[in-house]
């Protein structure tokens, strides 16, 4: 783990250049520790590599995968090297030995809402990833069972997206045979 360089020390060493505090890195990924929680900002292509590396570090269990739609809140705080996208996939990992947690935030663009599945590394991510795909409309590459989980199979749309309105919509029931 690389320590964050002290901004003051950087200024002293390189007085000419404006000292921009460099983001702390872990497995090559910028991290933040807001509210005491370790968050890694990982590009899509590196998700599997970073999750595998973290697993070797002791983050054995994937406790949760969920998605966030930042449609109405694009200007959230992110490290300078991370480009905000509409969707985020959030993966929560748990280290039993050191009793710590880590969270991965993966930016997923609106034009191509896909993210790599981590089911091959953490089989427990299967259900949560299906839920994210179902409710948020982010599909997971190489997921063994890419079906709807909470909504009916023939449901149109993804309810947790911000452009999916809360309100009255016709209830979709499957055609049931009549009593007579």
């Amino acid at each position, binding site marked *: 783990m690389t320590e964050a360089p002290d901004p003051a020390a950087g200024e002293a060493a390189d007085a000419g250049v404006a000292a921009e505090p460099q983001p702390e890195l872990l497995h090559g990924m910028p991290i933040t520790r*807001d*509210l005491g*929680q370790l968050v890694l900002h990982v590009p899509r292509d590196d998700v599997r590599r970073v999750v595998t590396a973290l*697993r*070797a570090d*002791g983050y*054995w*269990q*994937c*406790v*949760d995968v*969920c998605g*966030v*739609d930042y449609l*109405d*809140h694009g200007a*959230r*705080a992110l490290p300078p090297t991370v480009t905000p996208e509409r969707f985020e996939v*959030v993966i*929560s990992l*748990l280290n*039993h*030995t050191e*009793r710590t*947690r880590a*969270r991965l935030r993966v930016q997923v663009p609106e034009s191509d809402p896909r993210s790599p599945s981590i089911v*091959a*590394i*953490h*089989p*427990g*991510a*299967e*259900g*949560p990833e299906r*839920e994210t795909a179902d*409710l948020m409309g982010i599909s997971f590459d190489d997921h*063994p*069972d890419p*079906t*709807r*989980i*909470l*909504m*009916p*199979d*023939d449901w149109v749309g993804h*309810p*947790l997206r911000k452009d999916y309105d*809360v309100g009255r919509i016709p209830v979709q029931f499957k055609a049931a045979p009549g009593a007579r």
Partner: protein
Amino acid sequence: MSVSDIERLDAAVARLAADDSVLRLSETEAERRSGYQADTERMIMNMGPQHPSTHGVLRLVLELEGELIVRSKPVIGYLHTGMEKTGEVLTYVQGPTNVTRMDYASPLFNELVFSLATETLLGIEVPERAQWIRMLMCEVNRLSSHLLFMATNGMDLGAVSMMLYGWREREELLRFFEKVTGLRMNHNYIRPGGVAADLPDGWRDDLRSILDALPDRLDEFDTLMSGQPIWQDRLQGVGVITAEEAIALGATGPILRSTGFAWDLRRDQPYLRYDEVDFDVIVGTHGDSFDRYAIRLGEIHESMRILRQILDRMPTGDYRIQDKKVTPPPRARIDESMEALIHHFKIFTEGFKVPEGEVYVAVESPRGELGCYLVSDGGPKPYRMHIRGPSFVNLQTLPHLMRNSLIADTVAIVSSVDPIMGEVDR
């Protein structure tokens, strides 16, 4: 399990993948293919969602070879009411009323995890007494939830009298809840900033009489069930899982602990004042349905141990934070102070604003790790609220627990996982 056991974890992941115990069919496909399959000489059968022993509306699609279950898949969503979406249109003040309806057998834990997440974002810590009241209520709730498990687990396996005994004990606890919170279920008692009301007069006597009566009743349960050869035959060696498999599948709570892996967030990542009370983390050895039953019985005893310490150590003081921006003013102040009236109006119409940020907070519910992922955009309503329901994740162990077991064991295994469908479907 030690750190060097990453190889064993890898082996478990490979085994789970090779096992092919999950019947990966969509609902529609499962419907189309139900019945006898000539090509594989197997039968695809549907169990639930309206089945008395599926604890609500759980549907299982089973692939059978004779009497043996080869592959299976839990089909869920029958109770999906979009509570995460609802959470985005309710203020933080209204939030607990929503989340409390998720795991309806342990509502206070849902309120707790939501409140803790909100308080972490706000950067406030609730007063000492509020922390202890929350702990008290959660442990009583753990008792009532585990007693409900005892009742349903007994009934599922044919010990029908257990159903009545479990319900009878739980009734006493619900009466205690009603006295403290005003409601038997869905309390909306734990709120961001503290709890809704102070403990009522006489709560110590009520709690003491519960704690005095329960040990004898638990001994009766023990005689009625643990020692019985039929009970043992139905549960021992049924639905076995190893620690590595449980971790790989994301299982927490009694399922993980039944494998001998001691992990309890109350001890390992203490919240509230759990680091100040003495209790043991109960673990099993075999990872079977019997251990999962025995662990819950043991946890009832441990919760009672915590409750006795809380009785002795309950501090005095405020039951909610004295921060006017978060806590509504007392009723009497509204009549005499314009400022109090404005605060009251603001909190109950607009709600309080929570600083921008995102946070994941987890507590140990009776079913495992109950987590809340909260994103705030600086407004009075959560931008995104996600609840990590332990039942939802634990259900993934079902196909692996049921592989190569008899149809008759299905009920025993589902019962031992103890899913609450309200939380699974949210």
